[in-house]
């Protein structure tokens, strides 16, 4: 089937605006992960869901970041009151089993905060 999809692919927000980034995982994949990739860096873990349960949110950089996966499929990463340091590519990945193996990545959403 189709791979992991993310929308929008590009988002420009003015500082202080709220944004919502969507991830559609591969159908049937139990686990879903969000990563943040700053320019010139490797991706960094943000949060992890197993079905609808958010089991690890230790990587979320501040309480302005919030993620949900209410029906265990589509996930949304929300950033409130965006700041310039939030500019990055946000990557979503899904896995057919729990834990970190065999993650399949989406193309990412490039967020630019002006």
């Amino acid at each position, binding site marked *: 089937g189709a*791979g*992991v999809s993310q929308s929008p692919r590009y988002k420009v927000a003015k500082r202080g605006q709220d944004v919502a980034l969507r991830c559609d995982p591969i159908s049937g994949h139990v*686990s879903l*992960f969000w*990563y943040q990739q700053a320019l*010139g*860096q*490797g*991706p*960094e*873990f943000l949060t*992890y869901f197993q079905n609808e349960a958010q*089991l*690890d949110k230790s*990587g979320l950089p501040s309480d302005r970041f919030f993620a949900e996966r209410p029906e265990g499929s589509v996930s949304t990463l929300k950033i409130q009151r965006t700041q310039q340091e939030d500019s990055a590519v946000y*990557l979503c*990945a899904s896995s057919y089993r*729990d*834990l*970190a*193996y*065999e*993650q*399949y*990545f*989406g*193309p*990412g959403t490039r967020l630019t905060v002006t």
Partner: protein
Amino acid sequence: AQSVTQLDSHVSVSEGTPVLLRCNYSSSYSPSLFWYVQHPNKGLQLLLKYTSAATLVKGINGFEAEFKKSETSFHLTKPSAHMSDAAEYFCVVTWGYTDKLIFGTGTRLQVFP
């Protein structure tokens, strides 16, 4: 703490010559190690993985990597580079019962004709 170090930020090779991308890891536990490739405007793609089976791992597109515990290394190699190999490559570690992948900072591979 678990981490990976990619020793070269940029590697340039001529088409048809060997590729070597270096990676060292730090892990207190038995690690699982991966190489991912990222082409521009495309998602990260898994090249190969080591999960405590054979130490020489073969991946897609002719790439392979060897896990050397004594050297804490997991270098990526390919005998003959192709123009389409030009991309960013990430060495990644995870371990035991955990959920997150730990990425290196990446190596940009350039292939010249």
